[in-house]
């Protein structure tokens, strides 16, 4: 993929038509994954792998990541790389802290979204109007936003009751809902420790118990994004700006307008992600985002620039996050999972004729398996690195299956068609 830089070594998948996998295949893959998970759970005795508590924690961790990934998706589909996501998320966390402690969580969400829009507009002005390199503008925003947030937090939170120079007073959490009846039933089944059935029940219980309204909103936004970008004329035009802006321009699409809209929406989603993070952890803190903007970007790449994919990526990275909180036994089992996943990749690559890649994947997979059997726990400091390692592995071992928007990262000027 290019991000405006050199195009050496790039090999991208050709656009495939009519070969979309059916929902049935996805369901089978999900069942297969759960089967492997149950097997690893039974083998290692790490019950936390599929417990309802883990799934809940994973969901909470995944939501801000998914929002950041959506933010990346909106910008990149219109051809603008946004690595300023991290900074925009910081603005969002501050906004949620500021409005949240005074007027409740939903005011916080709205204000966080609003500040994110300001960050997005800044990026849009720099990249779309002035044609500044997207990476550079993003880096500048990442420098500017945390400084601005810290300046404002000293100004507004230092004297607020319960606040401090680097943190806001408490924000009330958003309301949570539980599917009545079903959740308890699943809880009973989960307690039985049956192979697969109990695991499935644990996951289902996690998905239906004490779900924050923010999580539901996030799900709605992911589905809505998929619909808007792939099922409406507006979305087609927006994506055309990311694939071939000169062609779009020749058909009368106002490319600059669409890019502006997309990058502003991107800022809004990033701000929302930050706001979700602050509200669900109860306050704004300096440095709260901790690279989540970048993990979001990684989730988007993992998800091949598609809403369903990025949701999977965010879910996966949220899951490792939750595992890290659950203690070393569960994390240790993740090593085996990673090893198995890599061997699967190796088999797939071998079948499509990429022998070298297949060999590399198999070797790394075996290495992870060996690590699992040779050690009894994973050092807790290393667990946080999992999303980044997985992303590098995906990029390195399966990048020929990725298809980013064709014109992403390239500068575009009206009337200067390439």
């Amino acid at each position: 993929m290019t991000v405006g830089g050199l195009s050496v070594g790039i090999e991208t998948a050709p656009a495939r038509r009519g070969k979309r996998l059916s929902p049935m295949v996805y369901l089978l893959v999900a069942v297969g994954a759960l089967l492997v998970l149950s097997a690893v759970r039974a083998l290692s005795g790490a019950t936390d792998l599929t417990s309802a508590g883990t799934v809940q924690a994973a969901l909470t961790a995944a939501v801000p990541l998914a929002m950041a990934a959506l933010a990346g998706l909106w910008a990149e589909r219109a051809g603008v790389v946004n690595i300023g996501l991290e900074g925009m998320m910081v603005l969002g966390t501050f906004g949620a802290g500021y409005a949240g402690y005074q007027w409740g969580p939903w005011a916080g969400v709205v204000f966080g979204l609003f500040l994110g829009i300001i960050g997005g507009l800044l990026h849009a002005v720099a990249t779309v109007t002035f044609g500044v390199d997207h990476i550079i503008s993003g880096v500048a925003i990442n420098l500017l936003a945390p400084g601005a947030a810290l300046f404002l937090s000293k100004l507004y939170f230092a004297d607020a009751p319960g606040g401090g120079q680097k943190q806001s007073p408490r924000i009330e959490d958003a309301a949570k809902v539980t599917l009545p009846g079903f959740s308890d039933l699943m809880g009973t089944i989960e307690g039985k420790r049956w192979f697969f059935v109990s695991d499935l029940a644990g996951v289902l219980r996690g998905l239906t118990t004490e779900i924050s309204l923010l999580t539901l909103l996030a799900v709605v936004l992911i589905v809505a994004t998929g619909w808007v970008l792939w099922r409406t004329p507006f979305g087609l035009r927006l994506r055309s700006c990311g694939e071939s802006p000169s062609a779009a321009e020749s058909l009368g699409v106002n490319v600059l307008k669409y890019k502006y809209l997309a990058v502003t929406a991107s800022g809004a989603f990033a701000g929302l992600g930050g706001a979700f993070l602050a509200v669900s952890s109860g306050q704004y803190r300096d440095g709260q985002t901790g690279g989540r903007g970048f993990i979001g970007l990684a989730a988007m790449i993992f998800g091949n620039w598609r809403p369903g994919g990025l949701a999977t990526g965010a879910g996966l990275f949220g899951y490792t996050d939750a595992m890290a909180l659950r203690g070393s036994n569960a994390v240790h089992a993740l090593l085996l999972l990673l090893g198995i996943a890599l061997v699967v990749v190796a088999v797939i690559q071998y079948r499509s004729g990429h022998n070298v890649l297949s060999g590399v994947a198999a070797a790394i997979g075996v290495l992870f398996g060996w690590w699992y059997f040779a050690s009894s726990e994973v050092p807790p400091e290393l667990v946080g690195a999992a999303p980044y390692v997985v992303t590098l592995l995906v990029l390195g071992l399966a990048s020929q299956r990725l298809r980013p928007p064709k014109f992403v990262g390239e500068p575009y000027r009206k009337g200067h068609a390439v």
Partner: protein
Amino acid sequence: MRNLTPRSVLLGLAAPLGALVFAALVCGIILAATGNSPIDTVDAMATAAQRPRTLVNSVNSATVYYLAAVAVAIGFRMKLFNIGVDGQYRLAAMLSAALAGAAFMDNLPSFLRIALTIAVAMLVGAGWAGLAALLKVTRGVSEVISTIMLNAIATYLVSYLLNPARLAETTAGSNNIGTAKITEGGQVPGFEVSGSTTKVFGLILLAAIVGVVYWFVLSRTKFGFELKATGLSESAAVASGVSVKKMVVISMLLSGAVAGLVGMPQLLGASYTYSLDFPPGLGFVGIAVALLGRNNPVGMAVAALLWGFLDNAANALDISGVPREIVLIMQGVIVLSVVVAYELVRRYRVRAEQQAVGKALGRTKTLEEVSA
């Protein structure tokens, strides 16, 4: 490149100066709007500028920022975005600190110890950057993405290694942990400045050497020419026989090696150990400084000094009651406005050039000619 005429010099300076003025204006407005006096802020910074200690600290910060900026600039010149300088210098500083502090090093002569420490730092930096280069040339993975990921992985790796069970030890009397302290033979002595208790880093000379080598390689060697050519037009470079893959690998390794040096002045000249409070985020400062200085060896030095001064003047602001974060805002605004300003100047230049060409070719007829 271009000839130096008064006009071109003026245009070259217009962008950074304009950005500085704009940033100062924005910050003034922010300060006034939040009930702080802009005049008092400037006054506090001006007072700070007269203290030798602030100046020495500024020069020391600038030394480090300059190295980071050169590391970034090597990539920038061929459109290679090494966002990973941050992870590269932290991993390099940590591992070389562990080596330099190890007991067996005590028996080696001082020069060899320092040289060995620096060499290891360069190797580690180059190695970490090399991973991104490898992914780029074999798999086409964007170096922006891979270096962002490697930065994060480096953070976790450093926190894993910086553990009393591995390469670190607890400092007596505090809850800080760091590598074993480098004994005197492994330290680089600084330069005394009258009126200041802190010394200027001895490794400021290293930064100067790196700057000169950077200039020489880029403007006087075939490699430098090919590097710049690749950055200006990849397809033209390929057509003239440049192996872009090789260039990517070499420049990424060089960039990483210089990134490895970033932590050295602080490590060998002031803290003598890599501990939890080792300065983070220098790689991103390097990006800002490289942008402000336009990848030019002298321009980056000026930008690094400015950055160092702003950072150290921020301490004086706290005393006068102005939140020091205004400096962060100012730096952010400078970076953003300077890249916009450079782009505007570039567009203006292109237009002016086109008009000059048009005039020379006589395409544009005057009104009299048309009516005649």
